[in-house]
């Protein structure tokens, strides 16, 4: 048996999951640290919920093992695991009031009624619903249900809290408020959160680290900034935010600097990093829309390329421009802050210049 990583609180090792012939999880290994806010991010069907349900014990891995706090979990049924879950539908028991819902899991602890009452009161304070103890489930709003589902799980002081898209059913404003509260709550209670979401913005806002999943595999595990600024492959780059892609070929290597010939951008240089490449190797180059600068006149310094403005969209705080450059099929997206007052947005096609910093370019691994 392989030893688990000592720093890892949850260790997922070579886990496969088949539903019949369909492979939902394909050899996933990852470690999640103690007290970490860890997100599983991906579109529907990527296996993120299956992975979460395997942590909870509702699904068992076909192969591989999951360790929580050093203990192998494959033989442990869900009701004995040191984890609790907040369900997507919240699963508030409709025949019980708020107080009994929150106290539900305390049965095993054989506490006095007084003690239970106090613990529930504490939880009601924590979720800022102190007056709601006697309400029935059907008298609660979506946001309140969500908090009660949280309280019901947290009262058991689990080592890990699993959250299955808990904010998906809330409207935008409430969702943003709950994001902040959830993050603050996680810091207060200090336990490990594993959070499943398909909303990349939500994942970026909340998480310490994010695993981007697709087709049952993990594409990249990184911090929010790491994922956004330095995506390792095209899928991650395209999934998180917007990205412009360019085909590029190595022109020459100068020490740590790589000079590439990029279709649409011309000669560009970027750092080589750990790669071993030679002239003629093909890469894919990527750059975020907001890292491109657009101007009507040719900039005096730095790398630049001329293109034709095809389309512009005014969004208030910023504007989106779509610029056609030679050698690219799709127009290049540019996002610019409207720091100066925009008098009128010029929709007519005219020639513009794009410029960028060398370190804004991302070299993708899988071209």
């Amino acid at each position, binding site marked *: 048996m392989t030893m688990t990583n000592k720093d890892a609180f949850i260790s997922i090792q070579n886990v496969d999951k088949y539903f019949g012939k369909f492979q939902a999880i394909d050899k996933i290994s990852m470690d999640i640290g103690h007290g970490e806010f860890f997100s599983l991010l991906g579109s529907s069907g990527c296996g993120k919920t299956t992975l979460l349900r395997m942590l909870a014990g509702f699904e068992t891995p076909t192969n591989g093992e999951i360790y929580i706090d050093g203990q192998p979990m494959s033989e442990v049924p869900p*009701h004995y695991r040191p984890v609790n879950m907040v369900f*997507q*539908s919240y*699963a508030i*028991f409709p025949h*019980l009031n708020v107080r009994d819902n929150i106290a539900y899991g305390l049965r095993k602890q054989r506490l006095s009624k007084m003690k239970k009452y106090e613990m529930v009161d504490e939880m009601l304070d924590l979720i800022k619903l102190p007056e709601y103890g006697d309400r029935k489930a059907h008298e609660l709003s979506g946001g309140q249900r969500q908090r009660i589902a949280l309280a019901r799980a947290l009262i058991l002081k689990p080592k890990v809290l699993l959250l299955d898209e808990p904010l998906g059913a809330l409207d935008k404003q409430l969702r943003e408020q709950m994001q902040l509260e959830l993050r603050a709550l996680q810091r207060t209670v200090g336990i490990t959160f594993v959070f499943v979401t398909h909303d990349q913005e939500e994942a970026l806002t909340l998480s310490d680290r994010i695993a981007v999943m697709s087709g049952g595999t993990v594409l990249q595990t990184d911090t929010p900034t790491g994922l956004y600024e330095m995506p390792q492959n095209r899928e991650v780059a395209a999934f998180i935010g917007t990205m412009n892609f360019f085909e590029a070929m190595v022109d020459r290597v100068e020490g740590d600097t790589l000079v590439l010939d990029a279709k649409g951008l011309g000669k560009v240089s970027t750092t080589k990093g750990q790669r071993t490449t030679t002239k003629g190797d093909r890469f894919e180059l990527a750059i975020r829309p907001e890292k491109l600068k657009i101007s009507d006149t040719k900039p005096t310094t730095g790398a630049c390329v001329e293109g034709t403005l095809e389309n512009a969209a005014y969004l208030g705080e910023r504007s989106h421009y779509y610029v056609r450059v030679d050698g690219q099929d799709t127009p290049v997206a540019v996002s610019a802050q409207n720091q100066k007052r925009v008098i009128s947005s010029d929709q007519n096609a005219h020639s513009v210049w794009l410029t960028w910093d060398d370190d804004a370019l991302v070299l993708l691994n899988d071209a």
Partner: protein
Amino acid sequence: MTDTSTLSETGTPSKGASHLSRYFYKSPLSRGYGLLSPTLLLMTLGIVVPVCILLVMSFWTRQGFGFDTTFTTANYVKAFDQPIYMALMKRSLYVSAWATISTVLLAYPMAYYVAFHVHKNKMMWIVLMTLPFWTSYLLRVFAWKVVLGYEGVINSFLMGMGVIDAPLEFLLYSPTAVIVTLTHAWAAFAILPMYVSLEKIDKSLLEAATDLGDGPIWRFIRITLPLSMPGIISASFLIFIPTTGDYITPALLGGPDGMMIGNLIQLQFGAVNNWPMGASLSIILMLFIASIGLVFLFLTKLARERIS
């Protein structure tokens, strides 16, 4: 009925709408009663009126082949004074209580299985479970006669195996035989409402209960059972009410010890030709069932509060 031309695309009545349709549009109550009215009419004619007739008749007395229509409580006094009536009433309630309990106990696992463990062709399973209902009630009762009879399936089998020397007599012509037959005959009525209430339970509630530390038994007691209670209650009523007054099964399988109040009522309206007495007994039976029903409802409500 609905004149769509009077409704504009936004759903509000256009200017040309008549006063009546505008009234119906504005008042959800009147629309509700409008929808109910055919059923209400039928209920009034088919249930309320006959029950009123029965109630009035129960205060009459027999006089030869006609009725003495002077108001009297003589029938009720007689029903409570002469031990035969209350004895039969007690036995009816006893038999149908056991039939109800055993039907619910037998049907619940079946409904549970289809609701939680069958994922394909659920409807086919339900239809298969109601299959006994495709034969006539009488036929099913007779079938049990063959099974339970003196030389029936069970007795022949046991004697053939050498377990018993003489046929077991309690099998047929006894309250037990009536209970067994009623249980089988009414099973489908119990399965359907319980299946519906079990099927409605959100599966994530069960997972949540498990997640919060309950094993299968506790989860059943604390979540599944209380949430399927409406189904159990309606199944119990659906069986208890008609079986208490049943007279076919006791007549064919009950023997002298298995006679029930339904048989007596039938006799009053038939051979004995004392309709007022039959009416009084029917009313008494109804009151008994109603009060037992109320007590039952009260107890389940109490139990539910206790569980939570």
